[in-house]
């Protein structure tokens, strides 16, 4: 019987402690910036508490290379979001200490989820993540859009949770265990791959994760939620919960349903193609950049789903590389939007960017890099992410899928580069109201980290890929 090795869950415990401590400190500290800084220190501590040797906690929770990579993604995502939020929430008049606690709790949920080897822990992690994010989406309480976003996110989330729970109960009923490894083995040895209850449960899992990662046709909530939520929370949601959803989706499909790979691989292929199609085409018609980025994030979910189709190690590695790079470019793009938001200026439509290259040339260049990267143009990280997924497809003899994906990438260039066109080639009809930009040190820091990482991962991707391969050999 395995012992309880607390060093395995040390980062989660530290973050939980930090989150609860911040709830208390919120009552005494009046300047919320201090809370943000303290939270960041806690995140740093959690980062150093990672137990690189691996190991597991009572067989429910395992720390391996797979979960390590995702946990690093979640912690970086959390730190960048905190940096983005400090000034933005003040500008929006909703600077509360609980905001940072909720970000931390949500991240703990994600970390639990990716490490879980048991359906019960997956469920609890999922709910911890989701419940905190519902509140975050509605954290600008006086704003109609924010409330609407929170409500839609909540209704969709509760529904998809009920669906995944039903899938879990059917899986438990047919196999008699909650451990996903044992479920996979049970299905394999008893030749249950065609069992109708198992098929239903597999479909329920796919539907529910489809909701979580906003894959078409389960995406209708995403544009409204991403547009209405505070921009900093949108940046957080479009990376963290999405990456966590993918992490668990891949893990459940590959560990619990490996003998049914033909069944789910076909469904996932269909979902991926639909997701890329709808995401990219509808993004063409958007005039709000925030909404366009929402559809672009749907389209990116389509590319990531493709990595699951070959059900190979290379595909999984591609998914992780993609999500790692996607985090920097996506948060970077949102940070530019945050920079342009001031008290009385929303600054998130295409028109607002007209002539930005004249008034703020430096910001325009940064936005240009992120847009190039999201399109997947070579010297930037976005290219490497797409490349690694497409290569895994080609190696698995899915050339035509890779072709389709490249075609959709080409379509996406239209709406990303349109942003660049508005910044550089258009002049505003009425001069931009000189409201300035909401500048702050933290925001600049987050933006430069994203910028440097996006460029560095594009120019020298070998480091990232090598270190991921290295990790997989070791743990």
């Amino acid at each position, binding site marked *: 019987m395995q012992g309880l090795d607390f060093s395995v869950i040390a980062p989660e415990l530290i973050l939980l402690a930090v989150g609860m401590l911040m709830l208390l400190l919120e009552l005494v500290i009046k300047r919320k910036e201090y809370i943000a800084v303290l939270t960041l220190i806690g995140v740093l501590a959690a980062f150093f508490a990672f137990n690189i040797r691996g190991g597991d906690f009572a067989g429910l929770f395992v720390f391996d290379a797979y979960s390590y990579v995702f946990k690093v993604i979640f912690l970086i995502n959390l730190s960048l979001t905190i940096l983005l939020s400090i000034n933005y929430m003040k500008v929006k008049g909703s600077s509360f200490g609980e905001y940072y606690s909720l970000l931390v709790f949500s991240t703990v949920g994600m970390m639990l989820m990716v490490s879980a080897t048991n*359906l*019960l822990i997956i*469920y*609890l992690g999922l*709910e911890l993540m989701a*419940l905190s994010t*519902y*509140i975050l989406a*509605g954290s600008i*309480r*006086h*704003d*109609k*859009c924010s*409330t*609407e976003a*929170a*409500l839609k996110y*909540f*209704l969709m989330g*509760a*529904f998809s*949770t*009920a*669906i995944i*729970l*039903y899938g*879990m*109960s*059917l899986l*438990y*009923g047919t196999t*008699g*265990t*909650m451990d996903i490894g044992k479920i996979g083995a049970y299905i394999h040895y008893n030749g249950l791959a065609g069992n109708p209850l198992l098929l239903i449960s597999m479909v329920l899992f796919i539907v529910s994760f489809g909701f979580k990662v906003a894959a078409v046709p389960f995406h209708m909530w995403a*544009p*409204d939620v991403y*547009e*209405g939520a505070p921009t900093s929370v949108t940046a957080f949601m479009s990376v963290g919960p999405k990456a966590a959803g993918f992490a668990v989706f891949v893990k459940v499909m590959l560990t619990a349903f490996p003998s049914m790979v033909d069944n789910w691989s076909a469904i996932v292929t269909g979902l991926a193609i639909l997701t890329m199609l709808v995401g990219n085409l509808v993004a063409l*018609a*958007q*005039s*709000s950049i925030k*909404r366009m980025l929402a559809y672009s994030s749907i389209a990116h979910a389509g590319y990531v789903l493709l990595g699951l189709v070959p059900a190979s190690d290379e595909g999984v590695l591609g998914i992780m590389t993609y999500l790692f790079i996607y985090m920097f470019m996506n948060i970077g793009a949102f940070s530019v939007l945050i920079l342009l938001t001031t008290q009385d200026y929303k600054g998130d439509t295409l028109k607002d960017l007209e002539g930005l290259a004249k008034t703020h040339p430096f910001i325009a260049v940064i936005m240009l890099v992120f847009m190039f990267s999201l399109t997947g143009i070579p010297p930037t990280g976005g290219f490497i992410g797409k490349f690694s997924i497409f290569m895994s497809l080609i190696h698995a003899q899915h050339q035509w899928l890779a072709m389709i994906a490249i075609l959709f990438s080409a379509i996406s260039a239209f709406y990303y580069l349109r942003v660049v066109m508005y910044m550089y080639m258009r002049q505003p009809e009425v001069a931009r109201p000189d409201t300035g930009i909401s500048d702050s040190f933290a925001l600049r820091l987050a933006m430069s980290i994203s910028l440097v990482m996006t460029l560095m991962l594009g120019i020298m991707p070998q480091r990232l890929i090598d270190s991921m391969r290295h990790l997989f050999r070791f743990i």
Partner: protein
Amino acid sequence: MVPLNWYIWLSGVMFCIGMFGYLTRRNIIIMLLSVEIMFNAVNISLVAFSHYLEDLTGQIMVFMVIAVAAAEAAIGLALVILLYRNYETISIDEVSEMKG
């Protein structure tokens, strides 16, 4: 003894009723209740499976589901109050600031 099949059918039918309610009703509180029905359908099937498999895991899961559903309801109702303050309605059809 009641056969396992009956429980599976009961939970399946309950789940579908909940799903139907969620998809057709426009009042947010009714939608919340529909989701609760779905959760309880899951609970029934978990307890039934747990009983017939003679394994306690399913029943432990049910406790977790009940606890989390309570937390979920608390957040949901808080959001409904927030919604009512901002919009003075709780019909999902009238809540549409964003289009596109």
